[in-house]
């Protein structure tokens, strides 16, 4: 039995959404995007809690939605953990897990539910009501309930957003462990890039109802396909520069009074412009006499705990680079600063 999920959906109401994605069995796909981007809606479409205007949703050889088919959530066998977990407040943890098993005889329900509570390390809490459990425990009950019914897909809507950072860390580990034993697609909605990088095999970036890029966490952070993706994955150094010369696979960009030679596969005529991005770790402060250094002036200083972020405007240009440094160093506004740029980490954005 193949459990790959394939979704292709268009929605006009209540807002425009156009999504196409796949998720293989045993794979964890993170839907990453800012609030209001439509990522939870995609999850609801997969669960059957909402229907698209057109498109198709298939799991393996089963059609869940197309022009003729329109399965209800009850017919899809999805394990769904809503954002606030959606636990039944009047039932004990055990009964909550049993709720997904009503097709089984009572003693079998209890046996299965106990097994799942044990797997999420909550055996001692089976008699407690949700209100008597901590946020992390509630999340695990919801996870146990979703998995107990042996779903064909697991959907998690911001499963860690309501938790403190210590609880979150331990639950990351737990989810990673659970994932190893699951042969179904797992789709997790999150707005946290770190979370996605840590847990997901692939990330789908959503913005404004559209999927902008799908790839491994490293792929989307190192090689964004557009300026918007670069912004969404938290890249600060995004530039647009004039092309001076291009020969072979190298292009020379004008950067104030500096020239920067970077590898590229794109053909651009001299005088044209290219957009490029740089991760913060590609920049390093160096001494003024370093030959390969770029020079500029500190235009702004932002203190962030142990770190200080420097905004450095290049000599003779308008480009402002953002660099990180340890906060025990002393910096002043308008002071000249030299820095090295690791050209191999430059990523040139594809032209649209």
């Amino acid at each position, binding site marked *: 039995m193949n459990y790959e999920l394939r979704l292709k959906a268009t929605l006009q109401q209540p807002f425009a959404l156009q999504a196409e994605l796949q998720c293989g069995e045993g794979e964890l796909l993170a839907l990453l995007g800012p609030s209001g981007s439509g990522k939870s809606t995609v999850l*609801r479409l997969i*669960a*059957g*809690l909402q229907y698209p205007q057109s498109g198709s949703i298939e799991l393996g050889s089963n059609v869940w939605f197309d022009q003729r088919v329109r399965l*209800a*959530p*009850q017919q899809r*066998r*999805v*394990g*769904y*953990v*809503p*954002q*606030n*977990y*959606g*636990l*039944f*407040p*009047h*039932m004990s943890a055990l009964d909550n897990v049993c*709720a*997904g098993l*009503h*097709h089984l005889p009572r003693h079998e329900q209890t046996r299965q539910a106990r097994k799942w509570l044990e797997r999420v390390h909550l055996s001692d809490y089976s008699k407690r*009501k*949700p*209100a008597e459990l901590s946020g992390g425990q509630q999340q695990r009950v*919801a996870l146990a*309930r*979703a998995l107990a*019914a042996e779903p064909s897909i697991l959907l998690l809507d911001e499963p860690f957003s309501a938790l403190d950072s210590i609880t979150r860390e331990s639950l990351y580990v737990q989810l990673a462990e659970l994932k190893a034993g699951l042969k179904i697609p797992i789709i997790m909605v999150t707005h946290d890039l770190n979370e996605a990088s840590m847990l997901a095999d692939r990330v789908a970036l959503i913005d404004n109802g559209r999927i902008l890029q799908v790839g491994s966490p490293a792929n989307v952070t190192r090689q964004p396909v557009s300026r918007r993706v670069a912004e969404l994955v938290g890249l600060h150094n995004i530039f647009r520069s004039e092309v001076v010369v291009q020969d072979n696979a190298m292009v020379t960009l004008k950067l104030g009074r500096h020239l920067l030679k970077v590898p590229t596969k794109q053909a651009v005529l001299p005088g044209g412009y290219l957009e490029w991005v740089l991760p913060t770790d590609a920049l390093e402060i160096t001494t003024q006499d370093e030959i390969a250094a770029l020079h500029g002036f500190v235009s702004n200083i932002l203190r962030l705990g142990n770190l200080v972020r420097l905004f450095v405007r290049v000599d003779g240009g308008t480009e402002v680079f953002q660099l990180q440094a340890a906060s025990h160093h002393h910096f002043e506004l308008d002071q000249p600063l030299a820095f090295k740029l690791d050209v191999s980490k430059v990523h040139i954005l594809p032209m649209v």
Partner: protein
Amino acid sequence: MDWTALWLSLKLGAMTILVLIPVALFTARFLAYRRFVGKPVAEALLAVPLVLPPTVVGYYLLVGLGNQSWLGQWLMQTTGHFLVFHFSGLLLASIIVNIPFAVQPIQRGFEAIPQDVRDAAACCGMSSLRMLFTVELPLAWPGIVTAIVLTFAHTLGEFGVVLMVGGSLPGETKTIAISIYDRVQALDFAAAGNMSLMLLVFSVVVLALANSLSRKFGRRGGYHEL
């Protein structure tokens, strides 16, 4: 003490609950979860008995169901009696004026159940009916208790519409509220006082009981408190 009138009032209250609450459950659930064109109008119509003087409702029932109306004539032919000045007419009137008291608390009870909880129930494979009995009703229960108590208390106290539709036939349409009025008209203040005191004590006891019942269920995890 007019025991016949008290018994009639209690019977009317119980019958109103028996007929109205099941209907109110479905109406309230529909209003709570469905979006449709004209929903504000539907809600306004159901709330009208709250603001209209009961005599107005009584007037329309009298005119609409009396022996001059075609509906009244038809009812006469099929059932053998007129609804007005009859217990069944009284029951109908009581149901109509109690609609908002029954529907609104139940609707609030259903609305208070988070979307997440109902979504999770659907993904657990629960059918609508199973969801209603295992999730929605237990969680909306405080609202339902409120509706039952308000309807019952309101029926005991109803005066205007009963007088208009029912008249004051002993054992048929003469409720305790009408009986008190009758006693006062007859300057029998002792009897009126007895019955009033009895009604007062009874109302306080019922409301207190409902309050504690509702709170008990509230603690069990419901979302609504009286």
